[in-house]
């Protein structure tokens, strides 16, 4: 008994540095925020108890409702796409290929760079004469040549496969050897056709899709489902940067799946897609729960991208709950609205908690 209690004290001592930091910056701050959310505090007055007034005021704020809509849409869409994307990439990178480590490092790169840097780069690519619009323009210019090339490939591949089958070989439609042959042949064909001047580049005006300074929404109605285009721009950027992190977590989980499962499935004639859905997905289910939960928490708290996009986009198009809190805490040329900001922060915390609990009922953390 005595030894045990001494052990407990020792454990607490070891935990102390962490507990103290957690206590000051989390528990204490959290308690203060809850208290402030019931007062009309502005940093310079004596807080006065106002009950639930801040919470009811929240739902009369147009920007808060926009922020709520943006946060929910952002969270659901980004979490879904990044989870699926990460799982697919992880299962591809789990295969035995040459130079796999190179691919793994390359795919992981976006997650290493700081989100500020990535956001600035994307901000530049989203400009009207930025990389995205440039690539789209080039794609349209080269459309005739690309179409001819694809057409040639299709025709040659069909001819080759039919020829092989006539000769009695069981050729698949996407037989790799034949595919390489037809791609090379059609490339040569396209080259000849374009040299002869039968096809040429199209003259198209530069694509002028406006990503940032716009108030367009997709779909434009109903209001609670409408995604502002600048928000979509941030979604794309965030998916790009977080997929690799989650990919790494999935990859670690996949390493634990015995290779014999896949071999047995192959013997039974399962296709790659069947293997993915019947072996890979159930095997990583506990990790799937983790990834979805982390993704949701991360996306609901999204702040830095909005802050960096700043004046380049209309505020109401990209405002999120976390940014709303900041915006009310340091509102331009007025006194801080600490009460309202705290109420919004507490709302965000409770909202996140609810969603994660709900999510738990959909994706079980244990396989039965």
């Amino acid at each position, binding site marked *: 008994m005595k030894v045990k209690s001494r052990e407990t004290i020792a454990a607490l001592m070891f935990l102390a540095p962490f507990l103290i930091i957690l206590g000051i910056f989390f528990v*204490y701050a959290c308690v203060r925020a809850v208290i402030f959310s019931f007062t009309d505090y502005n940093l*310079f007055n004596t807080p006065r108890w106002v009950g639930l007034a801040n919470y009811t005021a929240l739902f009369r704020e147009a920007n808060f409702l926009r922020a709520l809509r943006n946060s929910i849409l952002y969270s659901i869409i980004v979490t879904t796409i990044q989870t699926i994307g990460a799982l697919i990439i992880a299962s591809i990178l789990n295969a035995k290929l040459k130079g796999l480590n190179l691919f793994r490092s390359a795919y992981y790169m976006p997650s290493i760079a700081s989100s500020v840097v990535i956001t600035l780069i994307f901000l530049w690519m989203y400009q009207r004469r930025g990389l995205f619009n440039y690539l789209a323009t080039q794609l349209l210019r080269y459309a005739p040549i690309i179409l001819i090339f694809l057409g040639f490939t299709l025709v040659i591949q069909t001819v080759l496969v039919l020829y092989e089958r006539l000769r009695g070989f069981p050729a698949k439609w996407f037989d790799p050897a034949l595919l390489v042959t037809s791609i090379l042949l059609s490339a040569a064909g396209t080259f000849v056709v374009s040299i002869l001047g039968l096809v040429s580049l199209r003259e198209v005006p530069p694509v002028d899709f406006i990503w940032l300074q716009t108030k367009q929404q997709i779909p434009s109605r109903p209001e609670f489902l409408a995604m502002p285009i600048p928000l979509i721009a941030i979604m794309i950027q965030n998916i790009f940067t977080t997929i690799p992190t989650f990919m790494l977590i999935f990859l670690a989980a996949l390493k634990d799946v015995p290779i014999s499962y896949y071999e047995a499935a192959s013997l039974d004639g399962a296709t790659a897609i069947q293997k993915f859905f019947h072996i890979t997905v159930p095997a990583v289910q506990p990790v799937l729960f983790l990834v979805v939960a982390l993704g949701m928490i991360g996306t609901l708290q999204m702040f830095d991208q909005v802050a960096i996009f700043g004046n380049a986009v209309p505020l109401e198009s990209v405002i999120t709950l976390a940014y709303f809190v900041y915006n009310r805490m*340091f509102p*331009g*040329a007025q006194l801080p609205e600490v009460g309202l900001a705290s109420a919004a922060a507490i709302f965000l915390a409770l909202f996140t908690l609810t969603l994660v609990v709900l999510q738990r009922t959909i994706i079980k953390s244990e396989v039965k």
Partner: protein
Amino acid sequence: MKKLVKMLTAVLLVTLIALPLFAGGKQEKQTAPASVETASKKEVQIRIMGYGGQDPAVVVRLLDEVIGEGLEKEGIKLSYEPLEGDYNAALFNALSAGTAADIFYIPVETAPGIIATGKVLPLNGLVDTSPFIDSLVEAYTFNGKIYGIAKDFNTLALHYNKDLFDKAGVAYPDENDNWDTLREKIGKLAGIGDNIYGISLPADYARFGAFAFAAGWKPFDEKGNTNLLDPKFKTAVEYYTGMVREGIAVQPSDLGQGWTGGAFATEQVGIAVEGAWILGFLRNEAPNIQYGTTFMPVGPSGERGNFLYTVAYGINTDSPNREAAVKVLEALTSEEAQQFVLEQGLAIPSRKALVDNPFLKKGTPEAEANRVVFEGSRMGFVYGYQFGKVGTDWFRPINSALATIMTGEKDIDTALKQAQSEIEALIERAK
């Protein structure tokens, strides 16, 4: 056993919650000796809080080389504390926590908020404001009380690329230009090449506003409301965005640049509308551009329009060394300090007397640009870069209206109507 753990945890948690209270107590004790020091007239430490970025380099030199020695004889030691990142947020925190410096910067656009904290000392009777430019003093006067002495300021001017104008055979813009003659010159200049534009205009109120003022529009009426549907405002929008729609003007972002100065440095645009801050940039980034500077064009109102961008020094009401702080404030805005700031080429001093400064009459392009920016502060309709209580959120609806008009997403009337309803909501919210 379990009880023991529970008790320990409870004790720990209580201690944790109580800890900051002790920390708070300690801090008060720390400040106490400082006031004792003042009483004994030994040595006083005056702290100054301001921007990060490039400011520390200049201000520290100002303190060390220009004003430090004289103050040291009086027993006043100076230190500069830059607040990196969001200056406004950091200053509010410091003011609220009681850790703010004795003297701090007050940016003109957020001045109403900083002053509303009640932590800024009114300077009436403490500092003589008569040597300073009136409009600068006015920008910091609220209800008859003066809360800050502008350390320096900037206005907008037209900086033009002489080589491009020579190549096009078009006369340089000059002080006689009005909107129409300027537009003509811009159009001719844009005609000399596919990727050459007469002027660079961003979808930004910080530049556009000067044109709206020249049309006779006022940002706020007596009641503090804003009217974007005013025909004068619309005239300015038509002029400003029209040049972009026509293709003779270009947004800096369409040249892959973040601001007009960057666009000017590409040598693809004839004119940039910027303040004196462009000079240092051009010196470093585009030393080969031959440029000249002239006044903003005369608008339909028969007057020019311009912004006053400024930052002031204010004194903390909680400063334990108020007298010393006033002395430092006077030294910081003294003629010799301002001469130093001017010669660094960053901003224009806020004293009236400096208009006769030999530095402004040297005849070099930089000196000429400084003179134009200096005189711009008293030509036509000049308003502070200030947005009442709404702060910098105020111009967001205007910026996005300008952007949607420039890209052709919306026509002028629809965009302005929407901006008007948004700006009304913002003003209503701030009241």
